[in-house]
């Protein structure tokens, strides 16, 4: 029945992504580089949270990333955890020239798992890759940790822009793929089976709507 075509829906996707990691590893500058192509050598420390939106093109679809840049200092943890709610992606950032920031990654992972309400697509980011002479954490170490924890991995430099956009895109693309698979699966299920009430994946462009209500990584649930 091709007479009336299905209404072409211009749903836009909105993903909430958080930037976490120790103080002064370059979270705010990664965001400044990615969203505005700017870099501030002496940017102020982030107090509480800062917010940016950025549009990305994924497979010809417009996807909006709502990026929350959080404070790195330990003392702020009590408040920053409140900002993780509804996040579907995370950039877990350390500074390759300060080992201590790499050692904290485990704690940040814990933090994410405790305070976000679903599995978060996470990329481990070794920032400041331009500081070759001051390197304290090797690429291999970063990669190994990422593999052990099931995370994506990339080394970036907000200063010379290398891999910055790629790191954000990796996360957004993976979320998009997981979501697309879910939608397809739910359509399949619907066709074969009784309509599953309450199990539909909502994909509306509603500003603050959480894109998925279920864990994106839990492939074959239901």
């Amino acid at each position, binding site marked *: 029945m091709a007479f*009336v075509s299905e209404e072409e829906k211009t749903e836009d996707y909105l993903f909430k992504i958080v930037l976490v990691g120790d103080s002064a590893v370059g979270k705010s500058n990664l965001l400044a580089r990615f969203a505005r192509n700017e870099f501030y050598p002496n940017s102020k420390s982030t107090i509480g949270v800062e917010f940016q939106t950025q549009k990305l093109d994924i497979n010809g679809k417009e996807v909006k990333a709502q990026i929350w840049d959080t404070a790195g200092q330990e003392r702020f943890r009590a408040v920053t955890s409140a900002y993780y709610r509804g996040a579907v992606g995370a950039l877990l950032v350390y500074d390759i020239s300060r080992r201590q920031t790499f050692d904290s990654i485990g704690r940040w992972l814990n933090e994410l798992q405790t305070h976000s309400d679903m599995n978060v697509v996470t990329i481990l980011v070794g920032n400041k890759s331009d500081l070759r002479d001051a390197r304290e954490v090797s690429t291999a170490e970063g990669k190994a940790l990422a593999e052990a924890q099931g995370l994506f991995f990339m080394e970036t430099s907000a200063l010379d822009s290398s891999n910055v956009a790629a790191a954000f895109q990796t996360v957004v693309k993976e979320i998009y793929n997981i979501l697309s698979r879910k939608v397809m699966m739910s359509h399949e299920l619907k066709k074969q089976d009784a309509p599953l009430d309450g199990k539909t994946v909502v994909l509306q462009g509603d500003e603050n709507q959480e894109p998925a209500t279920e864990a994106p990584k839990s492939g074959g649930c239901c």
Partner: protein
Amino acid sequence: MILGYLPPSRDLWEKELSENRKKYAKLKEELLLTPSELARMKEEAFQSNEHNNTHSDTAGPLIRHEISHEDHPLSLGKASVWHQYFEHTEIAEQIDRDLQRTHPEMKFFSGESSFGRKHRESMRNVLLLFSKLNPAIRYVQGMNEVLAPLYYVFSTDTDEKNAVKPQYYGFRWITLLLTQEFNLQSILRIWDSLISSPFGIQEMLLRVCCAMLLCVKSRLLSGDFAANLKLLQHYPEINIEHLLQVAQDLTPDTSYYRLPS
């Protein structure tokens, strides 16, 4: 409450609201789907019934739609679902044209931003449903204008998820005594006021924060979540004397609690 939208007892509000929202979603589903979507839903429901009753295997070949001659899309009969659907499309187009010129000066209603489009779509659904539920009246031009103030108030009042929580901006304002929000000259002027205020530093600080919200009130009311959060995290340059005057003149609303006698 005066409109009869909410019952007099506050305790019943939440229940009433959620029931009404369910009713609305159901109506939307029943009345705004295209006939092919409707047919598919019926088929699914049929299959599920069959599934439940006889446990028959539904994985067989697709069942051909039973389409009566009446309900064929090219049928000209007045009672055909498609005829009704096309009529509905005509009304929808009229509504869309009118919504394009409903308060076009306000971002809330206009433009190609996602929330502008979203608001127009919601209003279109409201007007379409009204026309379907009141077939004798249908859609009359001007209803869009009557709906606009109601929709505006309800959608800005009740959208909990879109709440720009004070933790997102006020945390920094208060903990840093506003030092990241203004340039140094302005900070010095504000601090003079804080330190010398007869209200005390803390209360004056909260007053200034409230005044900051009041001074951008109209922008906040017309902005969406992202725009509002950006605005409050990057507070615009304003006349500091005016801001402080507003803070000074604030009168706390004490009608809610009784002062100890």
